[in-house]
């Protein structure tokens, strides 16, 4: 069972090379952008001051600024990761039917349950883990780039950058966030897998249609917005961060930034992991995901492909 699962996960990695290439492309873009100075210094003035070697900046603010830089890098990946997850999930059970290779996959001793499970695990864990590794590497590249810049200007790179950057906290928080996001969005992932298993054509359209049409119909017919709110809240309000909106933290400036800077020193302290994991909404979502996944397994197993 475990041996099969590992082989099936490797298979997903071979087939969907985008799992690796999408974050790598984002990483290359980030590093290039960093090289031209757009991200690391050009746009973020607070970071700029810190890196310029201004000793008037308190250590914790410098750490917060570096953490902010790291978050700016990570957040681009998060967006790319979610797009990747959507396309991966929609393709995972559709491509094998389109090229008829499903007949080959079903000729080997792996059950439909094992196969669909490998797709779900890829969307939920493999993609976030690969993304995380590449994010961490990108952080190092970007900071290295900043190091060269600071060093050329005579700054103390150890003091200003490497001892100041809160690696452990930032990376732990990033990993937790990357793993929590697909869990929170799991009903969508389950829905995408199901669409991928049953649709005869254009999975993207088929998947998007009810997400758009249900709220619209509800508005027209009942003038209510239960679906719209459910979809919206699910999409943007992951209850992982306490007190701070996870987007807000990235875009504040001025005084508000200074206040947040203190908080940002420890991203982990901003997270309420216990609260997140005990949120009924999370588990409701996971149940919905489980039901859609079971439906996907059922369709793969029972539909005659002739």
């Amino acid at each position, binding site marked *: 069972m475990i*041996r*099969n699962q*590992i*082989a*099936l996960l*490797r*298979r997903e990695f*071979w*087939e969907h090379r985008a799992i690796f290439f999408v974050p790598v492309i984002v990483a290359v873009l980030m590093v290039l952008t960093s090289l031209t100075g757009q991200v690391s210094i050009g746009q973020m003035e607070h970071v700029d001051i810190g890196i310029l070697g201004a000793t008037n900046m308190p250590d914790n603010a410098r750490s917060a600024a570096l953490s902010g830089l790291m978050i700016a890098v990570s957040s681009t990946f998060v967006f790319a990761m979610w797009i990747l997850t959507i396309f991966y999930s929609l393709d995972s059970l559709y491509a*094998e039917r389109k*090229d*008829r*290779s*499903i*007949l*080959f*996959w*079903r*000729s*080997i*001793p*792996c*059950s439909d349950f094992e196969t669909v499970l490998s797709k779900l695990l890829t969307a939920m864990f493999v993609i976030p883990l690969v993304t995380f590794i590449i994010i961490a590497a990108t952080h190092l590249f970007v900071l290295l780039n900043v190091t060269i810049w600071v060093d050329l200007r005579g700054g103390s790179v150890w003091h200003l950058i490497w001892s100041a950057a809160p690696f452990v906290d930032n990376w732990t928080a990033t990993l937790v966030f990357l793993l929590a996001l697909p869990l929170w969005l799991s009903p969508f992932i389950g829905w995408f897998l199901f669409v991928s298993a049953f649709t005869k054509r254009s999975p993207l359209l088929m998947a998007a249609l009810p997400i758009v049409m249900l709220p619209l119909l509800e508005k027209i017919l009942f003038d209510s917005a239960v679906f719209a709110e459910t979809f919206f809240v699910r999409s943007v309000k992951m209850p992982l961060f306490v007190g701070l909106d996870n987007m807000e933290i990235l875009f504040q400036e001025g005084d508000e930034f200074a206040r947040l800077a203190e908080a940002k020193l420890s991203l982990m302290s901003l997270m309420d992991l216990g609260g997140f994991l005990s949120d009924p909404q999370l588990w409701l979502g996971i149940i919905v995901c489980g039901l859609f996944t079971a439906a996907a397994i059922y369709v793969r197993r*029972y539909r*005659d*492909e*002739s």
Partner: protein
Amino acid sequence: MTSLVSARNVSKSFGALHAVDDVSFDIEKGRIMGLIGPNGAGKTTLLKAMLGLTDCQGSLSVLGLDPFRQRRELMQNICFIADVAVLPRWIRVDQLLDFLESVHPRFSRSRAEELLAKTDINSKSKVRQLSKGMVTQLHLSIITAIDAKLLVLDEPTIGLDIIFRKEFYGNLLNDYFDGERTIIITTHQVEEIENLLTDVMFINHGKVVLDAKMDDIPERYVELLTSGDNAAKAQQFSPIYEREVFGKKVFTFEGVDRDQLTGLGELRTPDIADLFVAKVKGGSA
């Protein structure tokens, strides 16, 4: 018990269409069975039922297992080639071997590599880079390297040129078949596999119209080539089918003693293709 596949009153309907209609048969171990029928006769549905890819009514047992409910166990002992185009196009040959080595307890990588070494297939090639013939060679090689009890081939050589087709069946007999293994094969190119088969089953409109050992065919069936008065006499033995070739009549008889027909014309054993036409067309006439 030597019966590898045992079907009793197996049926499968799609709405009003009876794709497989109350079929019973046995396939014994170590046989090469040709399953022959026109398009839409129910061959593929029957194969799918045997492979556990579709559910059916009646009792069907393959290797003592219920194919639909015990598909995973079954697949450890069955291989099938649905047609030439189903290997995933993105996979590399060595990845395919890696994968099978991990998931298939009966797959021998060294055997597969040995077989592939005889071909022009590079282990770093992707399936999409291989010609259709090479993909079939690859598929047959990996399947030969699986120590399975039953091999099911559904139109395995469709779209291949004659050289690859001959080679495919040559390899099938030389490398795969060892007298212990069992093969079920469907194809339109009956002539090419005729000499390979030990058993033959005709299926039409979901019914089995013939289920026989090849060795028994000459005893059961005879073809008479004749003309004129002799043709009229031959009619009395109620041929199952008649056709005209170059102005002469050809009659196909079932269960008629050759001695009775001697003197009426030229006698011969019908080949499978002719017998198939006789059974299918004669049956519906």
